[in-house]
């Protein structure tokens, strides 16, 4: 190799390095995201029509006939009344034997909490309660007991319309969730909004792409694909994996912001848990 070509290789390497650095500094711009908003290709009436043509009431019917997550709900009720931790208290000691004081509370979640300076979800709040008031160990996310307890707490708000607020301090977190939703990620260069806003109501092979209006109202849900119940954030991870995107841990800041964004889209719809999904 001549001296000239060696110098050229070195120069090229330096170029690659600086290009890499430039890329990362570009990614650091996320503090003030510029997003391109999409509008749905079809109207909501047209979406309803197409949804009914493809699925009809099949999932509602299956949920009514026999939802395997109903057993999980019974277990959640037992866990709610079970004393744990150093304080010798159970959830029922503060919130009433059948959770009377929690009726309608889950409909306002996720919401801003100054104590964590972020968005608080039902699953996170349960674990915080366990640590701060019961002196018990936090439950590992997506384990059977954690889901059962979350499911029971949410089921106390069944039928209550979702009423999530994004005013005041929650606003920047809502914007961050929205930015994640509209930003393109991963190997396939998809954003959530491409499928669930712009092309909602179109067919993707045999599946109808769902609209983000109806995403948040029945989680945790039993999903036939999983053969088990799972949380909303497990679904995020599944979606991320499908588009070759980075899969984030449960209850991380991004997913909590995203949960706030999606739950706000479902404002006004009644909570129905446990849900039943294809």
């Amino acid at each position: 190799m001549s001296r000239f070509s060696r110098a050229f290789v070195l120069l090229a390497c330096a170029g690659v390095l600086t290009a890499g650095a430039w890329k990362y500094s570009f990614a650091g711009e996320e503090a003030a995201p510029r997003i391109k908003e999409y509008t749905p290709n079809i109207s909501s009436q047209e979406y309803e029509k197409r949804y009914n043509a493809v699925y009809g009431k099949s999932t509602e019917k299956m949920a009514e006939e026999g939802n395997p997550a109903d057993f999980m709900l019974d277990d959640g009720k037992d866990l709610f009344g079970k004393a744990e931790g150093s304080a010798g208290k159970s959830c029922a000691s503060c919130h009433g034997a059948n959770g009377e004081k929690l009726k309608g509370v889950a409909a306002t979640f996720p919401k801003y909490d100054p104590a964590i300076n972020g968005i608080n979800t039902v699953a996170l709040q349960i674990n915080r309660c366990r640590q701060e008031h019961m002196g018990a160990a936090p439950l590992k996310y997506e384990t059977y007991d954690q889901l059962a307890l979350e499911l029971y707490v949410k089921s106390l708000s069944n039928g209550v319309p979702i009423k999530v607020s994004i005013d005041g301090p929650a606003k920047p977190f809502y914007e961050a969730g929205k930015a994640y939703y509209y930003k393109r990620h991963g190997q396939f260069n998809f954003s959530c909004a491409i499928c669930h806003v712009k092309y909602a109501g179109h067919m993707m092979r045999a599946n109808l792409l769902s609209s983000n209006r109806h995403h948040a109202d029945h989680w945790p849900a039993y999903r036939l694909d999983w053969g088990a119940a799972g949380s909303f954030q497990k679904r995020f991870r599944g979606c991320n994996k499908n588009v070759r995107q980075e899969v984030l841990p449960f209850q991380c800041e991004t997913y909590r912001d995203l949960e706030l964004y999606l739950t706000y889209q479902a404002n006004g719809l009644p909570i129905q848990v446990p849900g039943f999904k294809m």
Partner: protein
Amino acid sequence: MPAVGRIKIRMPHTISRGQVVPVDVLVTHPMETGLRKTKDGKVIPAYFINGVDIFYGGDRITHCDWTIAVSANPFMTFYLKADKAAPLRIVYKDNKGGVYQETVQINPR
């Protein structure tokens, strides 16, 4: 962990004598096929319900042979002519010797 073999039976609330009623039965079971592998390549052993017996009063009214093709947490519906006041008993048997059963009393008017 979710318990195996919990059964839920769903029927109309009031039944008249001789009426044909749908009976919905749900059972929790992993229904492992024996064809799946874990991440480190070990085969997950087969574990599935292979026989269902339905008794009405003293008689066995039907028997089903199930295979690995049935989904996890199987749900089934059958129709029953309610012509006597008697218990309806549903018994599931799996390939590891587990027996799960549930009884519901039928009182047609």
